[in-house]
C-alpha cells in the first residue's frame, strides 16, 4: 500500500531540496541563493556545535566532576578539575588587552601536550608500522601467481623498491643528482602511481554522493506527485 507523506515531511523535504539547488547554483557562479544557503549552513552548524560542545565536553568532562549532576551543588571529591577549569577561563583573557598574555599559558600547555601525544603515535604509525609492513608483511612467494599472472614475489620486490626510492625522495639533506637523483625520481613516480589510484577511488566515492543527492531529488519529486 502506498504511504502518503505528511504535510510536515513534504515541507521539510522541499526545504532540503531547495537548499540543495541553492548550493548547486554555485556551479554557475556566486549568487544570492548560494550566499543564503552558505550563511544558513554556517549559522546552523555553529549553533549545533556550541550545544554539542556544552553537553559532550563542558558538562560531561568538567561540570559533572565539580558539581552534582544537574545541580550547582559543589562536589569536593574531584577538586583537581579546577585546574583545567582555570586554564579554560584563562583563555577568556584574550578579550582584555591588559591581561591577554595570560591566555598564552593554556595555549602553550595545549600545544606541548598535543605534541607530546602526537610524536610517539606518529613514530609508531608512520615509522615502525611501515618498517614492519615492509620487512615482515611481504611473503616474497615466487610460487604463487599474483597480479597480471606475475609471481607474487615480483610484486613484493616492487613494493620494497618503491618504498626505498620514496624514502630517498623525502631525504632533504642531499641534492637530487646522479644515481641518488634517479632513485628519487623513481620514488616520485611511485608516489604518483599511488596518487592516481587514490584519485580514481575517491572520485568514484564522490560520484556515489552525487547519485545519492540526485536520488533525493527524485524521491522529493515523487513525494510531490
Amino acid at each position, binding site marked *: 500500500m502506498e504511504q502518503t507523506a505528511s504535510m510536515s515531511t513534504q515541507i521539510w523535504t522541499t526545504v532540503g531540496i531547495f537548499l540543495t539547488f541553492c548550493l548547486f547554483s554555485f556551479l554557475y557562479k556566486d549568487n544570492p541563493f548560494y550566499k543564503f544557503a552558505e550563511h544558513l549552513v554556517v549559522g546552523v552548524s555553529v549553533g549545533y556545535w556550541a550545544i554539542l560542545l556544552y553537553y559532550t565536553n563542558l558538562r560531561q568532562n568538567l561540570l559533572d566532576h565539580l558539581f552534582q549532576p544537574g545541580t550547582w551543588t559543589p562536589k569536593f571529591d574531584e577538586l583537581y578539575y579546577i585546574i583545567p577549569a582555570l586554564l579554560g577561563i584563562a583563555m577568556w583573557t584574550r578579550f582584555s588587552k591588559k591581561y591577554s598574555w595570560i591566555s598564552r599559558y593554556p595555549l602553550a600547555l595545549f600545544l606541548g601536550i*598535543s605534541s607530546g601525544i602526537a610524536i610517539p603515535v606518529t613514530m609508531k604509525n608512520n615509522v615502525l608500522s611501515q618498517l614492519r609492513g615492509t620487512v615482515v608483511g611481504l611473503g616474497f612467494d615466487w610460487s604463487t601467481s599474483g597480479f597480471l599472472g606475475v609471481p607474487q614475489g615480483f610484486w613484493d620486490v616492487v613494493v620494497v623498491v618503491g618504498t626505498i626510492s620514496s624514502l630517498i625522495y623525502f631525504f632533504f639533506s642531499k641534492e637530487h643528482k646522479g644515481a641518488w637523483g634517479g632513485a628519487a625520481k623513481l620514488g616520485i613516480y611511485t608516489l604518483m602511481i599511488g*596518487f592516481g589510484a587514490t584519485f580514481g577511488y575517491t572520485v568514484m566515492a564522490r560520484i556515489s554522493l552525487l547519485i545519492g543527492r540526485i536520488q533525493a531529488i527524485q524521491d522529493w519529486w515523487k513525494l510531490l506527485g
Partner: protein
Amino acid sequence: MKHIKLILFICLSLCLTQAIVAQTATDPPAETAPAVQPPAPPGNVILKDLPNDEGHGILVRWDLSPDDGAGRNTVISYDIYRALSPSAPDSLWMNVGTVVLGTKRYSDKSVEKDAPDFLPKKTDLYYRVVAVGAGVRSTPASAGPVQAYDNWFNSMKMPELIFCIVFLILTVRFINMAKRGIDLYVRPLAGIEAIDEAIGRATEMGKPILYVLGIGTAGDIATIASFTVLGRVARKVAEYQTSMIVPCCDPVVMTIAQEIVKTGYADAGRPDTFKEDSVYYVTSQQFPYVAAVNGTILREKPATNIYLGYFAAESLLLAETGVLAGSIQIAGTDQVSQLPFFVVACDYTLLGEELYAASAYLGREPLLLGTLKAQDYLKAIVLVLMVALLALRVITGADVISKPFDAPWW
C-alpha cells in the same frame, strides 16, 4: 472329535506364541537412556594483573578440561565469572566472558565506571571458570583473590621509546650544530620557493592572500607545521604591506593563528597594521566551513591561496574554487588520500613530509633546521635497517626477524 479340538487348540496356541514372538522382535527394546554427564572442570586457574594497562584488567588462565577435545569431548565453551567474595551466592557471580573450547586464557577488562561489569582497581576479586557442554555445566574451578593495578610503564611501547630517544639525541645534536653556525644543507623545495613569489604577486595585484590551516586541531602535526609557515608568511605580508585572510575551522587553532600572525607583523616592525579580524573562526564542521571559504574565495578573489595543514574531503572543493577565482595555489598536507587532489588542482604541492620541511627551509632557524636534519637521519637509519633486515631475511630464508616485531618486548 476331542482330538481334533485338542489339535486345533495347540495350533492356535502356537500361532499366538509365534505372533507375540514376532511382535516382540520388531518392537525396539525399551531404552534406559544414560543421563548426560557434565564435563570435567578446567584445572589450575591462575589469576594475574593484566600488564601494561590503566588498572582495570585481570588475566585469567586455566588448564583445559579433560573433556575438551579429548575424553568425552563434550566441552563447547568456557564461562568466566567474577565476584567480590569467594562465598558470594551464585546470583552475585557475574558472567564476564565466554570463550570457545580450546581457549586457555581470557582478559577480563572493563574501564568504564558506569558499566555493569566495571572492574575496580586495588580490590580483591575472585574468579570461577566453568566448562560448558550441551545443556550441562561442570563444577566451577575457582581462584582468588587478585587485584588489578595500573602500570606506570607500558612495555609494549618500547620500540617507540627507543626510536624517540634516538630521534631526541639526533635533534639535540643537530640543533647544537646549527646554533654553532655549521652550514646544514637542505635541498630546494619548489613549493616553498614559490611562496615568496606568490606574496609578491599578491602585492602587485593589490589583492589579499588566503591562508587555510585545514580542518585539523592544534594538536595535529600538520597544523603545527603549518603554524610555522604561517608565521613566516605573516612576516612577509607585513613587510610587503599586503593583506591576508585566515579563516579557521577550530577555535583553538584560530587563537594560536592570531598570536602567530600578530607576532609576524611585530617581527616585521609593523604591529599597528595587524588586523585581528583577518584571522577569524568560521565553524567547526567540515562542509559548512568549506561553503564559507569557497564563498570568500569567489568574493575576495585572493591573488594567492595557501592550503597547508590537515585536510580531508574539502581539499578538492577548495582547490577547484581557487582555480575558478584565478588564484595561484600552494598546498601541502600529510594526508596521503588528499594529496592527489592538490596535485591536480594546485600550482605547487608539498607532499607529506615536505610540509614539515617547509618551515625549516623558510626560516633557517637552528631549532627547526636541527629538527629537520634529525628527521632526515632517522629516515636514513630506518632505510638502512630495512635493507639490512630484508637482506637477513633473504639470506637466512627464515622468518627470524618477525619475532622482535611480534613478541612483547619485555
